[in-house]
């Protein structure tokens, strides 16, 4: 029962793969709805699963944090399928070359989702590492999806090489941990390490940070992001920018809370520096970007810097703030990406200047994109503001007032480049005879729903309060 969501995702992946072979080309439009249905079923199965329990002799377990991470992964996957299907089914005005092979696309996507679901549930080093690879490897394929496009190929290749390095670092770190303790299970490791940290553990932790930092795009392990984001098809970029980061955070959570928990406070200074550098570099470099995908890549890097602020505080405030921010970030970033996907589907363009005058040709979509960007910049009353507010509060509570200042100033800097897009859409006049563009019903609904999410998450307290309440209860149960 506990593993039902994962099994459903994997079953859907195989079902899509088989149907892809059996169904004639014309009918393959059913593949996307099947993938969606599978994810929806997995979602309901997750809602039905209890928030604690274990399987396979404790190698696979659920708790509150695990449960919420899974919810986020499924949400990100579901929305990604929604924004991909127009492109893959060819319902676009400007066809990108080399897009197709729907069945494989959805199958691979579903496999990475299942990898993430296992990653956060894993309770021993082997399962953890294998599920991380299950989540990462398919992404290499997705990045290189536009087969005839050199940039896409370059993206795939860069991703493989960097990814392999990161994996090697991580594995090296994990092997040190194993060598020092002789244990595989995370809880046993934590118990072993309770006594004191041997110096070699610091090296192991540093290697693990490098591995996880690659996924989270923490500076200085962010180098791959811009090129890969630019080359990959836009829905894949969208997915990478949210889900891959969430997976990295899940990995960090697994290692740093579950294994190195007792020394977390010794790491705080380091995490604070990483966060400060990550958000600053992401923001400063984003200013000079002209391609909207590269732009979003650096924006995503800076957002990663904010997210890791959650690791600074005590569990009872840090965890809820981080999970809530991830939720907000997934909804907001995908809302922006949905607009970018739509624009690229309709016009085939992806430079920031191309968005010129959008507010006059398509006012509603321009408004949705603006709300998304403002939420990313942390403007109230949108959800991005509330999410950042909670994270900053955690950070200030831990005594890092300088970091709050850095983060808040960074929000202002980020506003500068988000406003560049807003300026193109609202202030610049449209091109002569620019046509009014249309949106397919699916994409229009998705954009609208995500925008509603962007607004509601900031105003309705129930989401945050639920996460917070459940975390408190879980921690209280742990303490007993």
């Amino acid at each position, binding site marked *: 029962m506990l593993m039902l969501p994962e099994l459903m995702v994997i079953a859907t992946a195989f079902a899509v793969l088989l149907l892809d072979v059996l169904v004639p080309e014309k009918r393959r439009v059913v593949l996307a709805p099947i993938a969606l249905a599978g994810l929806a079923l997995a979602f309901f199965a997750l809602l039905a699963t209890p928030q604690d329990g274990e399987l396979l002799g404790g190698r696979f377990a659920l708790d509150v944090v695990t449960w919420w991470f899974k919810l986020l992964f499924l949400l990100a996957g579901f929305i990604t399928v929604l924004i991909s299907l127009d492109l893959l089914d060819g319902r676009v005005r400007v066809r990108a070359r080399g897009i197709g092979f729907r069945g494989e696309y959805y199958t691979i996507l579903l496999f990475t989702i299942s990898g993430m679901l296992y990653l956060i549930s894993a309770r021993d080093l082997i399962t953890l590492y294998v599920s991380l690879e299950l989540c990462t490897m398919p992404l290499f394929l997705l990045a290189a999806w536009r087969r005839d496009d050199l940039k896409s190929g370059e993206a795939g290749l860069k991703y493989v090489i960097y990814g392999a390095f990161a994996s090697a670092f991580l594995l090296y770190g994990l092997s040190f941990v194993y060598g020092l303790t002789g244990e595989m299970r995370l809880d046993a490791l934590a118990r072993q390490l309770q006594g004191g940290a041997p110096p070699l553990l610091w090296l192991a932790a540093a290697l693990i940070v490098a591995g996880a930092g690659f996924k989270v795009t923490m500076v200085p392990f962010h180098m791959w992001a811009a090129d890969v984001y630019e080359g990959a098809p836009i829905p894949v970029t969208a997915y990478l920018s949210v889900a891959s980061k969430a997976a990295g955070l899940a990995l960090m959570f697994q290692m740093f809370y579950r294994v190195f928990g007792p020394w977390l406070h010794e790491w705080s200074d380091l995490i604070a520096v990483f966060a400060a550098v990550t958000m600053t570099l992401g923001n400063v470099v984003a200013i000079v970007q002209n391609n909207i995908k590269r732009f979003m890549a650096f924006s995503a890097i800076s957002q990663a810097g904010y997210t890791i602020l959650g690791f600074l505080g005590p569990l009872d405030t840090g965890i809820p703030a981080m999970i809530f921010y991830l939720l907000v970030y997934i909804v907001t970033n995908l809302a922006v990406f949905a607009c970018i996907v739509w624009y690229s589907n309709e016009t085939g363009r992806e430079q920031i200047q191309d968005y010129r005058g959008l507010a006059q040709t398509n006012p509603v979509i321009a408004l949705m994109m603006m709300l998304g960007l403002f939420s990313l910049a942390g*403007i109230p*009353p949108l959800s991005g*503001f509330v999410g950042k507010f909670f994270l*900053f*509060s955690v950070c200030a509570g831990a005594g890092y007032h300088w970091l709050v200042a850095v983060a808040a100033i960074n929000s202002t800097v980020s506003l500068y480049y988000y*406003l560049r897009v807003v*300026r193109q859409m609202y202030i610049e006049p449209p091109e002569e005879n620019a046509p009014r563009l249309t949106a397919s019903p699916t994409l229009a609904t998705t954009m609208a729903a995500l925008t509603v999410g962007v607004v509601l998450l900031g105003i309705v307290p129930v989401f945050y309060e639920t996460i917070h309440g459940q975390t408190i209860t879980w921690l209280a149960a742990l303490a007993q």
Partner: protein
Amino acid sequence: MGLVSWLIAVPFLTMLGVVATPANRSHWIRWISAVGCGIQLALTALLTWRYWIVASADFEAMNTATLTQLHFVERVPWFESLGIQYFVGVDGISVAMVILTSIIIFTGVLASWYVDIRTKEFFSLLLLLVTGVFGVFLSFDLFLFFMFYELAVLPMYLLIGVWGTGPKEYSAMKLTLMLLAGSAFVLVGFFALYHASGLHTFDLQQLAQADYPRALQRWVFPMIFVGFGVIGALYPLHTWSPDGHSSAPTAVSMLHAGVLMKLGGYGALRIAVYLLPEGAKMWGLFFMALATINILYGSFGAIMQRDLKYFTAYSSVSHCGFVLFGVAALNIMAFKGAVLQMFSHGIMTGLFFGLIGMVYGRTHTRIIPEMGGLGKVMPWLATSFYIAGLASLGLPGLSGFVAETHVFLGGFFGNEWASPWATGTLTLIATMSIVVTAVYVLRGLALVFQGPITNEHFEHLDDAKLPERLSTGLLLATLFFVGLMPWFFIQLTESSLMPLLNRLHEVPVVASLH
């Protein structure tokens, strides 16, 4: 939903009404906005009247328990785990600021009657902005306060960027970024207070019960004061103001100089001084000195300007200096002066920018040397301009005089935490600005309105039309009202300033009233 919530809801609902109207019905859009702001004005009158009754009853009974309290309070828990609530209410200072905002937005809508490019977006953004402003003046929870504060600043970007003139994109970006960078400092301060108090609440009144360590106050006070100082045009962070004001369309300049800049003084008084009295004592003299530079720098700057809007913007920098000067002087007289000056300058500068818009709409130039003799063809506008100018240089009988007198007297009284020589000298220097102000106001106005008509195109220009007369008339009446009956505003705000003083002197509320 109580009266105070309605004051936030009405502009917002009006905005929704505008958004729901088809974009090509620009006439409906104007009327919806005007009616909405008219209702807001009526609600404000109701609020003032009801507040007056409650407060004067307290005052007569010397009911010390309720005299300094908030009225019409509404509280709804929001993000409970962090102690964030929807907490609105009013005291005398808020009422004064709400009156100011209602008048300015009403006249601002009238002044934008002839905006015909993307009318719908213009009015929606204007109303969104003003929703934020009302929210700031009415909320007493720091989270809510901050939320409304940013909501009030951001629409400015598009309002200036789309409908502005001159280097509008540059000005819009500069203004937005500087103001939001200021708010970033404020946010850091808020978090420091939240965690230092240990109360797990953002409730302003509860936070004011806590004692903050001196070491904390030493750095948090300047952080918050400077953060608010940016929007209050504190020297040397005022540079966004001349550019922003001169690029903005008329109604936006009115709102911005008239109301938004007051958020700075309001926040500095209400939050920085109220929560951090020790910090205020340590830094008071320093900020008084900065404000003195403001006052002089602004007025000397105004002399040199050739563009009417830059001229008024520099004069605003100088007048906003009085507000911050009053706040930093830390005594009751100066506080009263600061609040009066916020109100008076808001009305005055709103009138200035409104009139400049009307003149510009006719002459299509704002360059002072290119104009001349306009008083002959537009007597109504010229007279209004002169009255506003006289209020600005502090002529008795108009609002500016009352406010500046209070500020200067407060400055001379000084306070027990700064050397009287220092405060006295600063005040003496600041008073010299009166002369400079007289020079630039009279000289500027004479160049524009008097003498022979320099340009033959100007001979056929018409005077103010009905909506324009209505809006200037309302603003002029307010100027005279404050000038001739200052006791109204003094009594309105005085009791609400007591908690600030009590916190400075660390005496319980009861003792201070006798």
